[in-house]
């Protein structure tokens, strides 16, 4: 991630203010920063979203493609995640510099979305045993301002909400079944994303458990727990990150706080997306 050099005094300041239940920007331990979400802003994709969480900036584009089914799972569609760490975010990402971070984030997303209830996988199957939709979910990291995993997962969920999959008509002739993908932009079906998880990262700073850490706070935290939380409050993936270790009691506390925040976040996001859908707003895009 980007280099933030904090002096010992600055670290102590953050740690001490945490003890008085204050964070450097005045938030409580379970508060998120201001977030902006916009969907459908890239016309060449089947679904797109941009999330700006304080200064973290994520752009997601989803493209769909018809592919032969996986012989292991003949009745479901597939998704694939790709993440590109743009060198615009930090020069450290130049060349192959961002690869490690990219594979970490995609691995976490893949794990979080691998449970069957995350999205309606059977609906992505066009012709059981033969053809299904493959969703290419491409994430672009434009700016890092802390809490990348959460922001990426929110952006992915929003882009999937925005996804418009063209309808396919099948006609049977002597040669077999012919597939015809509709090119009418208004002839599409949507994907149910109610079950899709959001990743919530809980950082341990001092003795406190903090969500949505800023870059400075991330430097102060030695260990963090990442959880994919669904709307129902179930955990679809979990991992610990950082060089420190945690004791069992604080892990269970962290899980609880992640669950609380995750359920609320899922609810808010879906509400916002629904309202955005209802009103005709002009895309803002990158001009603010």
């Amino acid at each position, binding site marked *: 991630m980007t280099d933030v050099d904090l002096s010992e005094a600055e670290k102590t300041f953050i740690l001490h203010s945490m003890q008085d239940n204050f964070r450097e920007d005045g938030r409580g331990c379970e508060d998120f920063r201001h977030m902006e979400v916009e969907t459908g802003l890239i016309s060449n994709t089947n679904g797109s979203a941009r999330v700006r969480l304080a200064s973290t900036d994520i752009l997601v584009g989803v493209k769909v493609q018809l592919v032969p089914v996986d012989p292991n799972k003949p009745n479901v569609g597939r998704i694939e995640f790709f993440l590109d760490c743009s060198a615009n975010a930090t020069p450290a990402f130049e060349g192959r510099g961002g690869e490690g971070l990219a594979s970490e984030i995609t*691995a976490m997303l893949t794990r979080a979305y691998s*449970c069957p209830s995350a999205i309606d996988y059977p609906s992505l199957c066009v012709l059981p045993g033969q053809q299904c939709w493959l969703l290419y979910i491409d994430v672009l990291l434009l700016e890092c301002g802390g809490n990348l995993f959460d922001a990426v997962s929110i952006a992915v969920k929003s882009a999937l909400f925005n996804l418009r999959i063209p309808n396919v008509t099948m006609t049977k002739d002597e040669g077999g079944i012919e597939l015809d993908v509709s090119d009418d932009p208004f002839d599409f079906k949507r994907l149910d994303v109610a079950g899709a998880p959001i990743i919530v990262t809980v950082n341990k700073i001092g003795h406190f458990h903090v969500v949505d850490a800023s870059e400075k706070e991330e430097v102060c935290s030695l260990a963090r*727990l990442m959880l994919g939380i*669904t709307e129902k409050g179930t955990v679809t993936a979990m991992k*610990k990150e950082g060089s420190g270790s945690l004791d069992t009691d604080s892990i269970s506390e962290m*899980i*609880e706080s992640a669950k609380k925040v995750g359920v609320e976040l899922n609810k808010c996001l879906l509400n916002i997306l629904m309202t955005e859908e209802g009103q005709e707003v002009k895309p803002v895009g990158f001009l603010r």
Partner: protein
Amino acid sequence: MPTDTRRISGPEISHSPYDYCLTPPIDLIGADKKRLDGRLPAQLRPLFLRAGVISQARGSGYIEVDQTKVICAVYGPREVLRREDFSLKGQLTCDFKFTTFSCRLRRQHQQDNQEKDLSVQLLEALEPAVCLQKYPKSQINIYVTVLQNDGSALSAAIICASLALASAGIEMYDLVLASSVAMRDALTIVDPTEREEEAVLNKTHKAELNAGSMTVAFLPSINQVSAISSDGEILCETLTKSMRLCVENCLKLYPVLQQALVKHRLDKQADTS
């Protein structure tokens, strides 16, 4: 590429025959309350541990958990090769690899995404245990190879790597132990085999809320969890309960690891004298 006309060229894409035999959903425990391999739900598999199996490595370890077999070598501490990687804290690198023949389906020689993910998880588990500040400007390399995978490969790898690190004489705060569980509905089974792991993750009906697996790495003497990861959809309460169960199982393995280490030291002493 020029084609050889005397050969019959095969299809460009080929699939393993296993791809086409759909595994029927299995019951984790049968009517006699026993698992497929005859174990009770809370019963661990027998474990064999030995240090010093690779003579040219600084330290090494071998673990056998029934049919899961993992070998690990530790090299270093040695000089950091690239100047830009210089740091006052030592660096730990982990390389996790399944051999191509270790699983039911053949794996590729190149490290795939799952192996990369497991390498990172292994590193997360071991890093808190190693006194890295004692090794400035140097790196320690850990290479883990799974020879045969019959479930709980990550936890076996963590135990094996911590034994290898200790036998290499790397200064550590504590040995690292690891344990896995698999869950389905109200049932929790410890130390799952590959079939059981697959069975909980490949659930077909959506109704089940609780189905997944979990691995915990634990440092017993400082009572800290160094890594925790889960897959599948699990309720929070089950997660907490399973974590405590994993920690309990780790503690059961602690004497085994200590004994393997002591045996290694005694063997070495006998060799030199």
